[in-house]
Structure formats: C-alpha cells, structure tokens
C-alpha cells in the first residue's frame, strides 16, 4: 500500500539454530513516529537491520518505501542512526557530513546548505571543524543524528538515539523528531526509554522473542481510557450514584490493592468515615461531565487528576514481567 512506509510479512531471521526474529509482521503508516519496543534480545536491532538491507532475512518479505530492503535508489530516501554508532573519527564533523552527503547523492550546493543546518539542529555548529576523535559519546550520537537527517530523508531509522545523551540532548532529540514528522517524514524509533517513546510516538509495536505481540496507537489509547483521581470534601450516596453512571469502574483509594491508604488525620475521610479520594476509570470525553456532576451535587472539589496508563505499565502487561537477563 502506498500509504505505508514499512510493510513486512512474516519476516524471519535465523543464525544457525538461534532464531533472532521469528515472525515480524508489521505495518508502519507514512508520516508517523513509530516506536519499536521490546526487552533486550527481543530482536529489535535485527529487525531494523533487515529493513535496511544490512541483514538478509531467512524467510518472509518486506517493503520499505514500496521497495525491497536494500534497494539502492530507495536508500537515498532513508536515514539511519545505528545503535552502535562508530564513525570515521579521523574526519572533522563537516568532512564527515560532507562524505555522507556525497554518498547520499547530494550535490555540492545542497551539501553546503544542509551541513550547517543539521549541525545547528544538533547543537554542534561550533564543533564543525573538530575531528570526531575528540568528540564525547554524546557528541558522536548527535553527529550521527545529523548524518541521518542530512539528506532530508522520507524515512529515518533511529536505533536507541538517546542512549548516550544527557537530559538536554534527549529533549533536543524529542524536538528533532517532531520537526522530522512535521516535514512529513516517517520515523522508526527503536528505544528502551519508554517515557520518551510515550511522549514522541504516534504508534508503538511491542516485540518479544522476535515476534510482534501487539501494536497500539498511543493517541487512541489516551482518548479511550484513563484513570481519574478526584478528592472532594464529602462523599454522598447521590455523588457515588452520579459518578457510577459516568465511569466504567470506580473505587475508594483506601481499597487499592497496593495498600496505599489515607489516614483520618490528613482530612481524607469525611464525617461519616467514607474516604474522600476516589479513583474512576473513564475516558477523556467524560471529564467535563464528571467535574460538572461533582459540583452539581454540592460537593467541593479539591483534586481532579486524570492519569493515563503509563507505557511502562502497558509494556509490562504486554511483554511480561519476567526479566530475561539479556
């Protein structure tokens, strides 16, 4: 399909007796930031390498920008930051980018324009003429991001793009990802940092033992289900009745399985002894109605906190809580 940047069907990779990727069946729409999540050793990097033509699959098929992986003219429209980013460190940052610009079939004028732009984008303008051998690991990752974006690709593979970056660098990468998306490009993001994936990705796939377990649209998730914590001065039967009509599930926080509870001295119980803090399972669309009902029944509202289920929670639920130790 033309609107898919990546489409794979039962892609498989074996190394002798070891199965690195068992069954990769995936569809990545164009223009999205796609997160690829899984525990260590799940086969994420092997998948990326197969999609780039670095590794030859044992079985299955794939289309990347409408062509088989490794198709030479298509590679001109793809950018890649490897997980193990090592470059020709005897080159200066500018020379390194110039080399990759020429290999990406950019003409001299484009190189002259784009190299300063991407250097500025990754915050390395003042280091343009320094040899990469003098760069810190974080700076090398930044220059790696610059080379991946230099030729304004339609599809970018980032394999752990923030592994060597400090919080400033991570924030920068988030900004860059949004810029790339705004330009209409597709980003395939392989990352362990779930909090970053959560704020940047449109869609995520969970992979384990080389198989895609689940694909999820993060925006859809936030629209469909969330947990809401409310605290009021007094809980009445009529309030509980109204809330029950607006939520699929509710409970006093004292009754939570993890044992957290409020004490009477902190004012979280009302006069008849009911807890005043309630957790509701509801949707974003219901939030204004819930707030309205609470006020309508005469209760005073002290806390109103919507909580989306964290990606980490989802990751553990889908992939499992067992640490493979890899």
């Amino acid at each position, binding site marked *: 399909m033309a609107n898919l940047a990546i489409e794979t069907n039962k892609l498989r990779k074996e190394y002798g007796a070891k199965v690195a990727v068992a069954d990769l069946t995936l569809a990545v729409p164009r223009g999205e930031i796609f997160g690829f999540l899984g525990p260590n050793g799940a086969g994420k990097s092997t998948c990326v390498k197969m999609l780039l033509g*670095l590794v030859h699959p044992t079985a299955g098929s794939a289309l990347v920008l409408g062509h088989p992986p490794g198709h030479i003219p298509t590679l001109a429209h*793809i950018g890649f930051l490897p997980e*193990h980013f090592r470059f020709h460190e005897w080159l200066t940052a500018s020379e390194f980018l110039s080399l990759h610009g*020429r290999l990406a079939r950019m003409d001299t004028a484009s190189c002259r324009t784009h190299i300063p732009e991407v250097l500025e984008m990754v915050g390395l303008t003042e280091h343009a003429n320094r040899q990469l051998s003098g760069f810190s690991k974080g700076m090398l990752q930044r220059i*790696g991001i610059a*080379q991946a974006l230099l030729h304004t690709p339609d599809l970018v593979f980032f394999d752990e793009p923030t592994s060597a970056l400090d919080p400033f660098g991570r924030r920068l990468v988030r900004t860059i990802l949004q810029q790339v998306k705004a330009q209409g490009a597709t980003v395939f993001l392989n990352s362990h940092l779930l909090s970053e994936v959560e704020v940047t990705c449109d869609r995520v796939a969970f992979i384990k033992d080389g198989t895609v377990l689940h694909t999820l649209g993060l925006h859809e998730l936030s629209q469909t289900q969330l947990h809401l914590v409310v605290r009021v001065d007094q809980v009445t039967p009529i309030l509980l009745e109204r809330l029950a009509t607006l939520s699929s599930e509710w409970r006093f926080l004292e009754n939570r399985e993890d044992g957290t509870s409020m004490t009477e001295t902190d004012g979280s119980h009302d006069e008849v002894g009911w807890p005043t803090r309630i957790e509701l399972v509801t949707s974003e669309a219901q939030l204004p109605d819930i707030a309205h009902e609470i006020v309508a029944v005469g209760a005073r509202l002290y806390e109103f906190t919507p909580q989306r289920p964290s990606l980490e929670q989802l990751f553990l639920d889908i992939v499992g809580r067992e640490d493979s130790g890899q």
Partner: protein
Amino acid sequence: MNAVWILAWLTFQEARRRSMVLVALALGLLFLLIFGVGLTLITQSRATQNASPANILAGYNLLTLAGLYVVHFLAIMLAIVATVDAVSGEIGSHTVQTLVTRPVARWRIIVGKWIGYAAMLALYTSLLSVGILLESRLIVGYSPPNALMGVALIVLQVLVLVSLSLFCGVYFSTLTNGVILFMLYGLAFIGSWVEQIGTLLDSPAAAQVGIVSSLVLPVEALWRLAAYLMQPPLLNTINISPFSLGAVPSGAMVVYSGFFVITFLGLAVWAFAGRDL
C-alpha cells in the same frame, strides 16, 4: 562523484590523517639515504677500486638487487599491515553500517577500497624502487636490465596481497586475517626455497611442492622472476649471486597472478554483498 572514487579518496585520506603516509615517506627517505650512503662508501673502498670490471659489475648488481629485495619485502609487509583491518575493522566497529545504508552498491565499497589501497601501495613501492634504481644509476652509473619490468612485478605482488586481504577481511577478524596473510606468505617463502633446492638437487617432487605453494600465494614467485630479469644473463648462468636461481618462474606465473588479483577481488565483492553486517 562516483561512490567508488569517494571510497578510494576516503581510504587515502584515512592513511594521510592517521600519519601513515607521512611516516612511510619519512622512513622511506631514510631507507634510500642509508642505501645511497652505503653504495657511495662501498664504491670508494679500495677493494672495489682494485676489482676487475666484471666483479665490479656483479657487485653493483648485487647491491641494487639487495636494495630492491628489501623494497619487495617492505612492500609485502606494508600491503598486509595496511589492508588487514580495511574490511574486518569496519565490520567489527560497525562503521560500515552507515556506509552500506547509503545508496551505494556494496561492490562499490570494496572496489573503492581496493583502488585506494592498491594505488597508494603501488605508488609507494614504485617510489622506493625507482629511488633505489636512481641511486644506483647516479652514484655508480649502473642500471640493471629489465628494471621497469622488475618494478612492475614487485607492484603486482602488492596487488595480489590487497585482493586476498580484502577477501579474507570480509569473513575473518583483523587478527585472524593477519595470521592468514603472514602464514600464507611464510608458506610461499619456504615453498620457494624447497623448489630452488629441489631443482638444484634434481628432485622434481620437491620442485612441485614449491610450485604448488607459489600457486597458493604467488608473491615470492613474482620476486624470483623479477630478480631473474634484473640480473645480467651471465650472473643467472653461473649462479654466484644469492639472487641467482635454480628454477625460474615462467611468464605463466605473471598471468596466474593477474588472474589471482581479479579472482580474489571478485570473491571479496561477492562475499561482502552476501554478508550480514
């Protein structure tokens, strides 16, 4: 610019930036200086001045060939050391991943590297060889016969090793590749002596062993042919020089060497195209 030339340029730039070119040129000049000084001193010695013209000619030839022998040996060592990491190093460090994911056919990467190393090493070997020949010419007025052909054969040795090294580098680590190349050279070297002595002692079986070892890696056979061509016919006949030969490789060995270069370059391209990176 074509990706092949970009990769060839990259290879040369790497050697230059890592000071390999500077160090090799400086030490090469020192080598030529010492050879020139030695040649001058030997020429001025009383024994040389009292020797017969035939002995002087033989002496000059011996000295020139000794210089070229060292160049041949250095060329082999440099060809191995310079290229042993060329492919395996980039695979091992993952540097190759950002190159191969550019719109560049994999064969261009190997051919570009081959051109870069071959041109650099051939130029360096030629400069040293021509330096030796020029010093002989200028200091003692002697030029060995077939000098250009001799230099060309020494350069051909370099190309043989570059092709083999790139091929082995696709499959083996840098260390293993180095062991393979040095051991194969050792095998070709000892095989050459077995062939020489076998021929002198009339042992066809021993001579065959030497020929087979030359086919495995034809560098020593090429040097023997170069030495034979650059000695006056009389010296080759009377066997008084260390470079006189019991068995002379035929022209077929040159053809075989050319075939070896192309075949292993082709195999390197084929292996690299099919390798998971």
